[in-house]
């Protein structure tokens, strides 16, 4: 049982390390700014998640229960989309996004500093 837990934790850790590396390499390699936004916000979060899962289960195997892992996971999962949204807004406002963004399909354009349609 201990060996199986050890093996599972090692596999999770190796996978997470690969994801973190892919995230940072994608940030360096992808050609367009909006594409570069994707790599770190998703892949790197998975990499940290793997480390947190392994840390929680490893401490649990030693008989300790720690809540910080759950707290960090929750906080990262809550804040990663918000930072991505802010960065996308910054890209659009500064004109660094792709010039041929797809149409929004509504009467309003991509939002940056405009108030929401209901307020007008």
């Amino acid at each position, binding site marked *: 049982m201990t*060996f199986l837990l*050890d*093996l599972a*934790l*090692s*596999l999770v*850790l*190796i996978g*997470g*390390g*690969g994801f*973190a*590396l892919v*995230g*940072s*390499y994608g*940030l*360096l390699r992808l050609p367009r*700014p909006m594409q*570069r*936004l994707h790599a*770190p916000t998703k892949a*790197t*979060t998975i*990499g*940290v998640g*793997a*480390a*947190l899962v*392994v*840390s929680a289960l*490893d*401490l649990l195997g*030693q008989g*300790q229960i*720690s809540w*910080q*892992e759950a*707290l*960090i996971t929750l*906080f*990262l999962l809550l*804040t*990663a989309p*918000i*930072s991505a949204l*802010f*960065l996308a*807004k*910054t*890209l659009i*406002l*500064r004109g*660094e996004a792709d010039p041929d963004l797809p149409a929004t399909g509504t009467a309003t354009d991509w939002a*940056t*500093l405009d108030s929401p349609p209901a307020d007008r």
Partner: protein
Amino acid sequence: MILPHALTFFLACIALSLLLNLWRLATAPTLTDRILTLDTMAVNAIALVVAYGIRAGTGLYLEIAVLFALTGFVGTVAYCKYLLRGSIIE
């Protein structure tokens, strides 16, 4: 038994990621890329601290990771807000 070796591999991956991030920070084509890279570096630093905590066998390092998670997010949002609005607290 194999967990320490997996941990070494993970630490090497994160270290390489941080080096790639530094390279991106130096050669970033846009200002927004620099903010994104700083955010990624904060997340990678959390992974590094957590992995070192597993190796040290104590949960104490998680406190540092919590602080990194909080300040990294606030820093990213503050930089973006400054570029978007020209001020942070309006």
